[in-house]
Every structure is written in C-alpha cells, then in structure tokens.
C-alpha cells in the first residue's frame, strides 16, 4: 500500500466527516464519532467523485494531486469550522445507557461473528480480480478507460461517438449511467497508481463499516440503548446479500443502500430533535442518490414527498401534500423536457424496449418475490422479523409521527417494487431473481432502523431503574431534548 493510496482513503474520510461535524456539531462521544466517521466516509467519497466529475478532459497524471489538495484544504477548513463554531453544538440527542446484566458478555458473540466475516470479506476483496457482471460492464469500464487512457474523456451516446473528430469521445453499453461510482473508482485507482482491481474495490469494505458505524451512531443518538443498537448492527452487518455485495465488490447497490440509510437516519433525527444540520445532511444525501443509480430518483420522489409532507405544520398538511405531489410532478416534467437519462431508462423499462417482458401470471412474480425474501439465503430471518416486529409494535408505530413516516416511506417503496414487477416488463428480472433482491437490498437499512426504533424501549434484562439517560447540550435551533419529549418519538 502506497502513501498515495492511504491519502486516497484519508482525504474523503476527513472531508466527509468534517462536513458532517460542521453540519451537526463536533462529535463528543463514541457514538457521535461513529456517526460522523461512517456518514462522513460516504459523504466525502461522493463529494470527491463529484469533484472529479467536473474535471472533464483532465489529465489523470496530475489530477489526483490537484483534487487531493483541494479536498484536503476543504477538509481542514471543515474541521476548523466545526471546532471553532460548532463545538458543543448539535447532538440534541438522547443517549440511553443501560447497565449490562451478567449476560452482557453475550454481546461479544455478534461482535466476533461480525469480525470473522470482516476478515473473510476483506481478504476476498484483496485477492480476487473484479468479478460481478454489471461492475465491469458499467462503472468499472468507464473508470478503467479513464485510468489506463490517461485522460478523463467524456462518455457519450453511440451516435456522437461515431461522429467524433479529434477530441476523444468514448461510449459503451452503460454510457448513460450516472457516472458518480465510476469517478469514485477512478479516485482509488489514481491513489493505487494503476488499475489494480482489488484496491479499486476495497472501498466497498469501508462502505460496509461506514454503514454499520453511521447506523450505530445515529440509533444511539435516537435513544436506542447500546445492546439494542449492537443487535441492530449485527443484524444489518450479517445479512448474506450485503456481505456478498462487499466480498464481490463492484456494484452500485451498496452505495445507494448506504445513501438511503443516511437519508433515513438523519431525517429521523431531524424529525425527533429538529436539528437543522441533520436536515441539511438528509437533503444532501437525498439529492446525491440519483447520481449513484437511477432508482435513486424513485427513492428521492418517495422520500422527498414524505419529507415535504412532514415539514409543514399539521394544520397545513393538505397543502403540504399538494406541494409534495407538485414538486414530484415538476421533477418528472423537467426530466421529460430535458430528456434526462433516468426518464428515458424508465420509459424503456415500461415499454419493454430494453428486453423485459410483462409477467404472464402475477402469481409467478409474487412467488419470486416471496422466494427472495423468505426462502432463499439472502436475508436470514430479516423479513420474517421485520413484519413480525411491525405487527407486534403497531401501537407504538401508530402513536409516533416519525415512526409512522418511516413506515410510510417503507410502504411506498414496497408498493413501488410490487408495481414495478407486477405491471411492467421488469417482471422478467423478478422471475429470474436478478433484480428483485438487489432492489430490496436498498430498503434494508430503512426497515432495520424502523425495527430498532420500534424495539428501542423493550427491556429484556433490566428493570427501569437500571436505565440512565444522558442528553448532550442542545443547540438553540433544535429545541429541548428531554426524556419526555423524546418519548413521544
């Protein structure tokens, strides 16, 4: 591992976590550090990829140094700003600490199991050349062309590629895919000093750690006791299909999954504590999702609609709903007018132009969906337990606005998945199991957060007297965070 490769890891982490600290306040305890580092890893990588995306035509040989200097300067500035102006701010959060019982050592079991798979996944990534199909077909093809070609050439549609003159234009099967992930791979390739696939893929392992860290940190801030958060982290980190996406790195699904998780985790903190910084982060991740993968637009519409709905005062909810639907319609209309790629892809998908076919029988699609969720080896008991927890704790769900909203997002997303596979030519990819689980993967952190929050006050080994609550000083803009106010959430 070279110094440049180390820098390639440190710069986005420092930049993203610095911006996170700027938005939410300087971390003051372990959990808030984990949230800042986990969320910051994702944010920093996205920002770096966006910076690279602005450098069309740049020469690769000098690009890494220039971008690294700019990003490092921004990172230092962000951390200085957080230290200078945001110290002691933010985290209007409620950390519930419980004394471990004599069975507390059992918490080591999930930790050991997570560590075991971490070693296996890490070594798998470091040994294996790029493996999964879409990775080398879409994102890695672009990054490799840039890295080995030495110039950040634009990827264009085939008609323009055929017409090219002296300026190098490139094309490919996935020329119209969002380029964020390809730029990200280019960043790590530049750090590695060449197209070394295991080093290009290593950030997927970092992403897994980041997803678990930010989930733990944000859950703790939302009043989830340590054992509950631990179990939630273990549940999320042990899901086989997530492990596969880490070990066989290269797909975009895990990145959009993590972005979705960050939107949900920051949004729910804003709903509970009204921390403006969390809302800014939620909006940032929300806007970034379509740049990772096209289905990000759908999640943006689902989440955005409910975020607007939730942001307006209760007496104006009708207007809020109208505004949300209006904003969604406007987004689609603008996309249509600008002939944006995601809408073209959606049109092709709905018309069957890209090779799908409508289900001959709805039952086959539903069976394929049920197979994927309940029978195959993708999710352990995750979906059994998720539905079970929602059924068991429905009263709590009903009486909490933030949880109702989370459940609403989940319901909308599940409805989208069902409609997509039942009524469009995408049915083909449900029946062949090639798409259904990867789409569901993106909803898993949302469902996990919902379940963890629903189970937050379940105490299986303690009397209430053994529970202590600590609230970090609250910034002026967040309103008081007291046990009473948070209990309502």
């Amino acid at each position, binding site marked *: 591992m070279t110094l440049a490769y180390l820098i390639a890891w440190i710069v986005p982490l420092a930049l993203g976590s610095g911006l996170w600290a700027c938005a939410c306040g300087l971390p003051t305890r372990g959990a808030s550090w984990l949230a800042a580092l986990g969320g910051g890893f994702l944010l920093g990588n996205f920002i770096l990829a966006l910076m690279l995306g602005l450098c069309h035509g740049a020469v690769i040989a000098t690009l890494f140094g220039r971008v690294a200097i700019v990003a490092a300067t921004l990172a230092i500035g962000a951390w200085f700003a957080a230290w200078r102006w945001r110290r002691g701010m933010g985290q209007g959060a409620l950390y519930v600490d419980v004394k471990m019982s004599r069975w507390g050592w059992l918490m080591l079991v999930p930790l050991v199991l997570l560590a075991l798979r971490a070693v296996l996944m890490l070594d798998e990534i470091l040994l294996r*050349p790029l493996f999964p199909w879409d990775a080398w077909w879409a994102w890695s093809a672009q990054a490799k062309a840039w890295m080995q070609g030495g110039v950040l050439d634009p990827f264009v549609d085939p008609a323009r590629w055929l017409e090219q003159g002296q300026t190098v234009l490139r094309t490919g099967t996935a020329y119209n895919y969002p380029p964020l992930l390809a730029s990200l791979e280019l960043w790590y390739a530049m750090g590695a000093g060449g197209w070394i696939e295991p080093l290009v893929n290593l950030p997927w392992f970092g992403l897994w750690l980041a997803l678990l860290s930010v989930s733990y940190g944000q859950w703790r801030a939302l009043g989830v006791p340590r054992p509950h958060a631990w179990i939630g982290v273990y549940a999320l980190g042990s899901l086989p299909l997530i492990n596969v996406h880490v070990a066989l790195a290269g797909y975009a699904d895990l990145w959009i999954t993590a972005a979705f998780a960050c939107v949900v985790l920051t949004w729910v903190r804003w709903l509970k504590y009204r921390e403006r910084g969390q809302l800014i982060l939620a909006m940032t991740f929300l806007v970034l999702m379509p740049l990772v993968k096209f289905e990000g637009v759908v999640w943006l519409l689902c989440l955005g609609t409910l975020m607007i709905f939730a942001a307006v005062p209760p007496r104006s909810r009708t207007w809020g709903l109208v505004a949300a639907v209006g904003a969604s319609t406007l987004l689609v209309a603008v996309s249509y007018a600008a002939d944006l790629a995601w809408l073209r892809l959606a049109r092709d998908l709905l018309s069957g132009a890209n090779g799908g076919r409508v289900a001959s029988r709805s039952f086959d699609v539903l069976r394929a969906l049920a197979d994927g969720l*309940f029978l195959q080896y993708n999710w*352990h008991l995750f979906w059994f337990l998720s539905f079970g927890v929602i059924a068991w704790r429905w009263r709590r769900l009903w009486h909490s606005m933030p949880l109702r909203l989370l459940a609403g997002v989940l319901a909308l997303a599940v409805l989208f998945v069902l409609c997509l596979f039942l009524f469009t030519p995408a049915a083909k990819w449900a029946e062949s199991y*090639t798409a259904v689980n990867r789409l569901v993967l993106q909803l898993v952190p949302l469902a996990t957060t919902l379940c963890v929050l629903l189970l937050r006050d379940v105490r*299986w080994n303690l009397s209430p007297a053994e529970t202590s609550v600590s609230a970090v000083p609250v910034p002026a803009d967040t309103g008081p965070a007291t046990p009473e106010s948070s209990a309502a959430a």
Partner: protein
Amino acid sequence: MLKRIAGGLLIALWWLLLLAIFCEIPLRAPLRPAQHRALPGSAFDEKVGRSHSLDDELTIDASGPDHSALQVREGESINAEDWRILRYSVSGLPRTLEMNLVYRTPDHPDWQAVSLPWPVNGSASFDLNRVPGWRGEITGMGLLEFPTAQLVPPEVGFRPFSVDRIELQSASWEGALSVKRSDWFGYWPWALMSISALGPDAAAPRGRSLVLMLALGAVGTIGVLVLVFGWRNRRLMLASIGSAMLVWIVLDLRWLANLAARHAGTRLLYTDKSWDERAPLVADSRLYADALRVRELLVDAPRQAKVFVDAATDYERARLVYHLLPLNTGPVNVTGYGTASQREGSYLVLHGLKDMNYDAQRHGLVSLQGSFYPVDVLFEDGDLRVYRFSGGARQ
C-alpha cells in the same frame, strides 16, 4: 408436570414433522436403504483426461484438452426408479472443480450432465429424483469434473484427485437426511448470480429451504409455549427474542461456513501471487489473453481511433470490451457499424463470430445478411480477428 411433558412432546413432534417435510423423508421407506450398490472408483473408466487405479481408487492425474475429466461405467443397465440416492466419495478434489453426474439412456445416447453438490469432507449425497431425465433404463453413468464455470480460469483449475467410491441407494430416511446435509451445509461456489440471489446461484438443483424450516420451527415452538404453557408478556417476549436470535445465529453460522468455503476457493487460486500474476487469472482467461494481443497490435493507433467490437455472445462481447480498454471501444450491439465515412480508418475486433466472413477476393467482410464491409486484414488467428475499415458498405 403432565403439561410440561405434553408441551415438550408437542415441540419435539413439531420439529420432527418439519424435518420430515423439509428433508422430504420418504415415510414409507425404511430407515436405512433396503438396496444399495457400491462401486469403487476403479470400476470406472477414464473417457476424458488421464487416470490410474490404485487399490479401489481411481486417481485422476490430468484433465483432457478441454480442461475437463470424465469417468464412466458402461455395459450394464440399471433401472432408474430403483435408485433414489447417489452418494459419492472423493479425496483431494480441489474447490476449483465442479462435479457433475453424467448418465445416458437408450432414448438419449449422448451423455447428459447434472451438477452435483461439492463433496464437503470428501463425500456428499444427491437426490436423483431431482433429475428430470433419470427415468427408465440407464445404460451408463459416471462423473464429470471441470473448472467451475464463470469463476475459475480453465487452465489452472485442475489438480489431481481420487474418486474413492460411488454408491447408489434406494430411498431411505438416512439417505434423505444425508441429501439434506449436502444441500443445506454444502459448499456452493461463487457464481455471477451470487450478487443477485443466494440459493439460485448454485448450479445443482436444490431442495426445500432451511430458512423457512427454522422460521416455522421457531413460530411453532412459541405457539406451544403460549397455548400449552400459557406463557404471556415478559416470558413470551423473552422466548420470542431468544428463539429469533438463536435461529438467526444458526443461519449466520451456516452462512459464515459457506462464505469461508467460498473464500477458500479464492485463496486456492490467488493467494501468494502479485496483482500482475492474478490479473490474467480470470474465468475468461483466453479472452483476456486475446485482448492483450489486440492491445499490443493497436498500441500505436491514435487515441480517438474507434474500435468496434463484436463477439459470439453478449457476455464475450462485454468482457472483450472491458479487457480491450483503454482502446476506444464500441460494442457493435450498441453502436452498430455507422456509415462508411464514420467507420473509415476504424478498427474491428471480432471474437468467435461465425456470421461475418472475410472474402479475400473482394477484400471485405460479408455478413450473413449480405452486407459488405471493405476492410484490410490486420490479424486473423482462430476465433480472434482484427481488421481496419477501408471504405463503404454495399448491400
């Protein structure tokens, strides 16, 4: 006390019932197979590859020219319906090889292959009922091994191993349980499908799901605790959480074992090698090598020179495009061939494509549809052909 015994019995019965259903235990069959027929490895003859017999074992020393090895036994017929379970023992089979059952019938004299579970700890069992063609008279059977498709570079996948014993058994409880053990706790190598679904990524036919059995088992157990023992509130909650965690950990340990086995296969191929040594070790290593030849050939081509790429399959075309980078490639299924002026001076790389043939007299390529493309030949070697476009197309 009676309630406790009744409750305990109910729970045990529930689990036994589930085990019988999910393991597809033939209830009318005996506990142990009534008939079995064991064949030592040496009873099989090599058809492809090189082997030798040592005592009862058949040691496979080398693979054939296509990197596979085939051992068969012919000359006697068996009735497929008499034999439900195939049990096979091998020693030293590397995780880079996939094992298949081959058989033939009078109606289908060509060998038919069915993927088998990889023999963990040297042996595995397979339910022949899952093979649609295993019906009526079987005139020959054997084992076929080849480097795991989509995963292992063919030229490095083979390592010597021994076939110790192959056994056919009639239906029995013991056989059904051993089939399930191979299915649920066997080693399933990585496949392209793994990124989308675990379970369907296995080449061999699979049986009923362990996940569902354990979930139903836990629900039934909790049901008995509620209905018979009257557990409510905190006790019920603790039992539910405890059983969910227990089942989760069982499933996770199973997955971890599988992940470790998959990773052991990866280590076998790539460990102690530098990146330069590992990069060519891909499942399509021949395509990779061909792409390197093209890159060397076109090393002096201008950066903006278009390189049209076509191959026999979508997979090969996409892989070839990836391996050819950083050449300015365009997959023909996306770009087409453009107009004569657009492609003039550009390159065309064809791999394994049979519907574009070079006409030496007309100095051009003729497609099956009758299109003609004037080209200069730069390179032709078997499946790999490279041309430079020199003019327009004529129908």
